[in-house]
């Protein structure tokens, strides 16, 4: 069941280069959204721009009735979002929860989550869910530079108390080498997979979210290692409810809607 609700802004501040974190009051969505689902936001104060924007939810706080959205400023809509503040006369509206989210195999014991850039955020609810279920989780994060690794500490906090057998912190790579390994995070994926195989406890689930080229490469790495892999596809969207067919993804079963058939797809289903 989807709703369209008014969601007042409670907090909205910059957390990194062109990266901002918004907290919204949205109890109906906080209590019902599943990892990987998204909300479709009408941003107030930009009526000439008529379309809503889809955003993954970073974290939820059910008792407070709030959701967090991590967003990157890429155009007019996200630029306008940075101007929203608590107490604004008109609040954003959210359609949600939308779509099919992450679905780890039932007997998943060891998972690898790979987040590129803001793609680290849509994996966080899944991460929390897997850790709570006792799954051994390894996290790989990639970003352009250290300041853009804005989700790292939150993952690290949970990992340090989760008792996972891998490192107690996310494995990180930055393009400019300011933090972690220099270069793309895909080499960390190779290493993590090799180490897990060598340890006798290989990964049985891989989830990746980020730029499409990254997801394509990681899907290939997963296929090579025989690990079930899921990706989260984001396309230009109009309705956000499955009606307009704007956001189709090419799959081996033909065109599918990223909004409601996805956004999470099995990597093998996507026609890369």
């Amino acid at each position, binding site marked *: 069941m989807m709703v*369209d609700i008014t969601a007042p802004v409670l907090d909205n501040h910059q957390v990194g280069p062109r990266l901002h974190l918004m907290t919204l009051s949205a109890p109906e969505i906080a209590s019902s959204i599943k990892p990987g689902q998204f909300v479709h936001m*009408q941003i107030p104060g930009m009526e000439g721009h*008529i379309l809503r924007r889809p955003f993954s939810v970073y974290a939820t706080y059910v008792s407070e009735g709030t959701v967090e959205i991590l967003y990157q400023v890429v155009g007019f809509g996200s630029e306008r979002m940075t101007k929203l503040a608590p107490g604004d006369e008109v609040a954003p509206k959210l*359609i949600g929860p939308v779509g099919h989210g992450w679905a780890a195999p039932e007997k998943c014991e060891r998972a690898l989550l790979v987040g590129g850039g803001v793609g680290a955020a849509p994996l966080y609810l899944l991460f929390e869910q897997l850790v709570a279920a006792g799954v051994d989780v390894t996290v790989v994060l990639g970003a352009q530079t250290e300041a853009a690794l804005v989700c790292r500490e939150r993952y690290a906090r949970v990992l340090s108390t989760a008792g996972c057998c891998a490192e107690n912190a996310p494995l990180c790579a930055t393009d400019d080498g300011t933090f972690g390994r220099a270069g793309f995070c895909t080499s960390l994926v190779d290493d993590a997979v090799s180490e897990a195989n060598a340890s006798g406890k290989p990964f049985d689930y891989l989830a990746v979210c980020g730029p499409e080229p990254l997801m394509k490469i990681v899907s290939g790495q997963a296929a090579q290692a025989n690990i079930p892999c899921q990706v989260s596809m984001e396309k230009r969207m*109009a309705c956000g409810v499955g009606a307009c067919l704007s956001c189709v993804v090419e799959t081996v079963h*033909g065109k599918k809607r990223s909004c409601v058939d996805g956004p999470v797809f099995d990597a093998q289903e996507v026609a890369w």
Partner: protein
Amino acid sequence: MAAKTPRETSVNLVVNLGGLTMKNPVTTASGTFAAGMEYSDFVDVSALGAVTTKGVSLNGWEGNASPRIAEVPSGMLNSIGLQNPGVVHLKSEELPWLREQGAATIVNVSGHSFDEYVQVIEALEDAPVDAYEVNISCPNVDAGGMTLGTHVPSVEKVVSLCREATSRPLIVKLTPNVTDITEIARAAEASGADAISLINTLLGMAIDVKRRRPVLARVVGGFSGPAVKPVALRMVWQCSKTVSVPILGMGGVTTGTDAVEFMLAGATAVAVGTANFMNPQATVDVIDGIIDYCEEQGVNDVNDLIGALEC
């Protein structure tokens, strides 16, 4: 949140669109509402004057490459390309669902050839359909669509063939991408249309200057949304002075006030399209807005608004 229904009123909202009785003058613009299922969390589809379904062809079409949409000032461009799973799927899935909901149903019929339009209608004659809307105006396909709707002899031929294929109410949807839309409206009426609907989208384009490439993969696409309303109103007004069949008006209808403008210009009913993407309850909000206007103005029968423009 329950699906929204229009508020109670003593105003008569029932209109007759060329033999199709609508409980209120609001339907959906084809292609913006699928067959209603996707919007059923938000609005009670049976409370609409009708649901107009996404264009259907005989065997299903894949549609165009992505990107398929672009946002432009107060509107959008689309080049979906009539992606649909074909008439058999519509008959087995969507139409029974709409009937179960109690929704009046207008099926938008598309084709790549004269024959295909007829075959689609023939395939639907035993299905729960209340009216057909013949789409001779889609700008996003290479054959059929708009290429038919800009040429009087083609309009006459396709409308006559469809007319022979059914006795159900036949609505013909016109493209605005012509020099004189009244000429096309007259041809549709003379060939047996029970009503005309207008406007389909205006052919448009958007460019990404950084990449020096078109935003849409197909380069050009259909322009819709609030920005096109003045053009649509003008064409509805022109056609209403030219033909005597009723008009289903559309193009940027977002509020009850917009709907009233179309009715004053001569439309018997209106379709809500792009506004569904902005507000998933737009259809019912438009009905409520029409009720508000009628009650405030002391109008007891919504039919009194049709063509009531003073000029």
